[in-house]
């Protein structure tokens, strides 16, 4: 009951934030919410399935660049929808090729995707359009962006929760544990993997599309490998096999780096690095491990639509 009340208050606070907060704190909340959306959507695929994806930067970048291209021509939030479709479509294509790779092979392949996209885009833009940079001259209002990101973060969390309770949640956990075994139990692992991967990529593309107007100018450098890394850090720091983990990780990392940035201009990275090391050594099951006693299970309650008899 208390938890539900707290949750309701949190949601109300997030909705009211643009009215209450100064633009700076609203922007901080927006940045952290964007990270929450990225980390949660990364974790609902990579957490249980244990396919460490480093493609976040690729999907994020695709969404962002799409906004830069179409922003002047279509009304908000169509670019965000477009970003979602773009991310999802890319993931379907890549997933069909890459999801038979295991472990480190998958990680490096997906990392390569962002680089491949970046350099192909540069090559195309240089050769064909003759420029690489694009300006967003009429960005949506800040509060529009805030609510867009808030919706995306909320949707990502709801998707993660629903997924855990669904048959696919079980299938992903099985895939992460022993993929071949999962196949012998009737699980179409390819479909589940590609489907979930595309779903998570759709969120990443949408977040990229929604964040792009904040930077006015975009070029292919927006395919930034650090987005991929940062997402992994947030999710793992919090605990990737839970829903709360990536949220906690994103909020913690967002606030910790902001405070370090404001307080220690020349020791910021040092502080961040030491924080990571201390958390890893002190909390074996991630920050979210602080929230509960038992070890994390990749599943929560029984799935809906369970078959029996």
């Amino acid at each position: 009951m208390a938890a539900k009340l707290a949750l309701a208050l949190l949601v109300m606070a997030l909705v009211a934030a643009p009215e209450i907060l100064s633009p700076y704190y609203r922007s901080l909340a927006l940045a952290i919410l964007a990270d929450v959306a990225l980390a949660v959507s990364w974790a609902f695929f990579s957490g249980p399935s244990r396919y460490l994806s480093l493609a976040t930067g690729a999907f994020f970048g695709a969404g962002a660049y799409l906004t830069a291209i179409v922003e002047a021509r279509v009304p908000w939030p169509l670019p965000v929808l477009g970003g979602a479709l773009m991310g999802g479509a890319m993931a379907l294509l890549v997933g069909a090729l890459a999801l038979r790779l295991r472990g480190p092979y998958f990680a490096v392949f997906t990392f390569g995707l962002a680089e491949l996209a970046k350099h192909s885009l540069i090559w195309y833009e240089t050769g064909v359009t003759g420029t690489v940079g694009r300006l967003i001259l009429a960005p949506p209002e800040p509060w529009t962006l805030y609510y867009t990101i808030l919706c995306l973060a909320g949707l990502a969390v709801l998707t993660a929760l629903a997924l855990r309770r669904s048959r696919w949640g079980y299938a992903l956990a099985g895939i992460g544990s022993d993929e071949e075994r999962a196949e012998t139990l009737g699980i179409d692992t390819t479909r589940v993997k590609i489907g979930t991967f595309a779903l998570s990529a759709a969120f990443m593309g949408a977040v990229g599309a929604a964040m792009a107007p904040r930077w006015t100018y975009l070029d292919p450098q927006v395919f930034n490998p650090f987005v991929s890394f940062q997402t992994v850090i947030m999710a793992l720091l919090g605990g990737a096999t839970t829903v709360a983990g990536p949220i906690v990780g994103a909020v913690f990392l967002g606030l910790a780096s902001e405070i370090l940035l404001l307080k220690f201009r020349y020791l910021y990275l040092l502080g961040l690095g030491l924080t990571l090391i201390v958390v890893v050594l002190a909390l074996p099951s991630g920050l979210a491990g602080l929230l509960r006693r038992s070890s994390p299970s990749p599943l929560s309650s029984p799935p809906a639509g369970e078959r029996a008899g």
Partner: protein
Amino acid sequence: MGPILLEGTDVGKRFGGLRVLNGVSFGVGEGEIVALIGPNGAGKTTLFNLISGLVRPSEGTIRMAEHQIAALPAHRISRLGVARTFQTPRPFLDLTVSENVRIAALFSGRPSAPPGALLDLVELGGQAGVPARHLPAGRRKLLELAMALALGPRVVLLDEILAGLTGSEVSRVTDILRRIRDTWGIALFWIEHVMRAVMETAERVIVLHHGEVISEGDPRSVARDARVLQAYLGPSTP
């Protein structure tokens, strides 16, 4: 014995230059208990891997009821009613015992007994909430059996389910196997080294040696077959 349910014709498998199975034909009837025996390295587990779709045969056909399954992915084969256990059990270690059974029930698309009843059958009802990681090896085998049954199978491929069990455990498990067949009419195709149990339980025995079927028939006649004795005891025996 009913009509043939699972049937292989001239199945062969090569790994690189190595021929592991050669012209193997077999059949398992509906509700039949068929043992697959042979010395280590005879290719028994490979045959199971071919049937369950984890490995593609190099030649030959495999049929399950009216379906050709040699080219199907593993999950499709399991949805056609072919379940299996593994020699070294492979339950999902981070999931609990009951979650392991439930996950199997979720995807087969076939009716099966409720997970709780299956756990009771294999005497794991008391450990439903325990992560599979914490089960000893013998219990993991039983968990795998329950998982296989949760698929609502028509045939279960059992890979040395009795290995490492004590004498009394062996007879309890063979009891369970008979009950499975008698209650649901599920056929069992069963790799086993515990000969006493095979002789008592199986209705038919197929002997595999160096990747080929060298003998087939009821347990008693197979046990007397000179080729079988030679395969097990070595060529020097007359």
